């Protein structure tokens, strides 16, 4: 399991008390901007990057990412275009890259074809929010065959039994949604959140990533020691929209 090994190695570094994962919507605002943003992210210490292949029906995403998906598609981004760009990134940068997308993108491409291609271009894991284990028989078999980590999501509504079940299917790490709802709104880190994270920890041996509403150094500090990976999603998209790609480097550098 390549991704697990890479994450464990990174976590073993005493200077890295928590890893950072960032999110890119491919083709938004353009692949050229994606390229510059990723370059800055990697240069400033981001440990993993999830690249979202746009889908016209991003059910689990909030307004900012929905808009980004839509505009990327309107500007003509294609799945092939995303794969070519991803290949360029994995060849240029040493960190693990993951694909985040919705199941129809794989289904329409041909699920096995998609795994084969992703393996070929060096993608390490998939996050597919609308594919629960109950619907993913083929997907999970192929993830073993091609050694691409399926990353499952824990939610605050997941029971401990359900978390244990999900953990059996997940590889690499678990993505813990910090709260209910969609991406892009601030999360309150209260006592309930701490209980939730403790339940997550007790339900799996895999490293825990926490995403949804993580946007500031305070958030990352708060998660340090509690989680293994902090996920920054919508915040960098807003940042690029407001201040351009050049603002991403200093922002990332200031998070940890």
């Amino acid at each position: 399991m390549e991704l697990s090994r890479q994450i464990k190695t990174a976590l073993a570094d005493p200077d890295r008390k928590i890893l950072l994962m960032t999110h890119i919507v491919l083709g938004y605002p353009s692949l050229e901007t994606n390229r510059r943003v990723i370059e800055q992210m990697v240069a400033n210490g981001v440990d993993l990057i999830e690249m979202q292949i746009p889908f016209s029906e991003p059910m689990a995403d909030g307004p900012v990412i929905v808009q980004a998906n839509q505009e990327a598609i309107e500007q003509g981004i294609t799945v092939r275009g995303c794969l070519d760009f991803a290949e360029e990134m994995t060849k240029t940068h040493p960190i693990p890259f993951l694909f985040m997308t919705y199941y129809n993108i794989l289904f329409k491409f041909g699920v096995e074809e998609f795994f084969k291609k992703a393996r070929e271009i060096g993608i390490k894991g998939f996050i597919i929010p609308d594919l629960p284990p109950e619907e993913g028989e083929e997907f999970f078999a192929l993830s073993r065959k091609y050694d691409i980590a399926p990353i499952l999501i824990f939610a605050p509504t997941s029971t401990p039994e359900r978390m244990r079940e999900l953990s059996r299917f997940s590889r690499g790490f678990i993505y813990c949604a910090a709260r209910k709802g969609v991406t892009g709104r601030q999360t309150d880190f209260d006592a309930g959140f701490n209980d939730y994270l403790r339940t997550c920890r007790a339900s799996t041996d895999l490293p825990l990533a926490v995403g949804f509403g993580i946007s500031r150094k305070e958030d990352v500090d708060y998660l340090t020691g509690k989680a293994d990976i902090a996920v920054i999603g919508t915040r960098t998209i807003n940042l690029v929209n407001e201040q351009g790609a050049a603002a991403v480097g200093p922002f990332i550098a200031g998070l940890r």
Partner: protein
Amino acid sequence: MNKANKPGYYGEWGGAFIPEVLYQTFCDLNDAFQKAKADPAFWQEYVSLMSTYSCRPTPLTHAENLSRHFGGAQIFIKREDLNHTGAHKANNVMGQGLLVKRMGKTRVIAETGAGQHGVATATMAAKFGFACTIYMGEEDVQRQRPNVFWMEKLGSTVVPVTSGSKTLKDAINEAFRDWVTRMDDTHYVMGTVCGPHPFPEMVAWFQSIIGREACGQIKQQFGRQPSRVYACVGGGSNAMGIFQGFLDNPAVELVGVEAGGKGLDSGMHASRLAARDGSPGVAQGYKTMFLQNSDGQMMDTHSVAAGLDYVGVSPILTDLWQQKRVRFSAATDAEVMAALDLTMKKEGIIPALESAHAFVQAFKEAGEMGPDEAIIINMSGRGDKDIFTIAHAFNDPSWKEFIKKKGIEYGA
């Protein structure tokens, strides 16, 4: 009906492609629904509610003038337009309302295309005392302003959806985004036989009241079963409703009519099954035939009828289509207006633009059939609620004059 071993599958179609945050909510919903379905008292309560709050059983009307006009089969019309709120949507909504009471939730949300499901849900929420938010594509808000007015007057909040194509599918996405945030007190009243399991099964079950009645009524009025049954198909709830009364009888041919828009070759239609443009996909929580491009991105659809303007179709109907149990055809916008005009003039009945699609196909075939045969058209809703759209489509001069005068009156 469900032949596959996996729950929620109809052949290879259906399933529940849902985000983890809703997993428990769906477990609870499945549980509550299966208990209700197994409890004869629940169905009794439902039928009793529909006969006192709505107009069930709705009549089956023998359209004698139309039958004579086409000189073929005896045409019968199942009058879902006579439901409270004017369409078959009330059946599903009141049923889910009873289920919401059982589950102890206090807030309902819904998507709406034409606005009929929205108005029905707002009505149910008012009656049962639930808070209610309706998601409606911005384009549909423009097309169906009178329904927006009624939803708001009934106490609901209407949220115009500005993402995507600003139509029904986008309203569904937005309703799901609400639900993943507030699943504890909120039930999503899905309006059609689509979406993740158990919605197709649940909505089909509530709508089966149409077919149960029609099957008995045609026997009583005509003496035997019809040769063919016609229904328009957007998501497919009115069609599933009436078809279930005849599914077990292979002698009854079932015909689904999709929106042909500006023609099946124009690329501007919403025919997932009758056209060759649909392909298998997974979106909005279920697997079915979608109108999508080769990358799996959903396409823009077109229909004069907002309620049929949708990229997907019921997984149950896709299975029945694949099994060749249901035949699919399409009616163009122009054919729909002609059928609507004829039905009004001959029978004094005003079908909704959606329902008029079923009339088109029935009219094409009635003349070729014998007078000893009967056909049933499911009239899913009434058309007078579409007055702005229908008047516009007819390009009616005196209506335009009226609107201009109203505009002046309001200082436009």
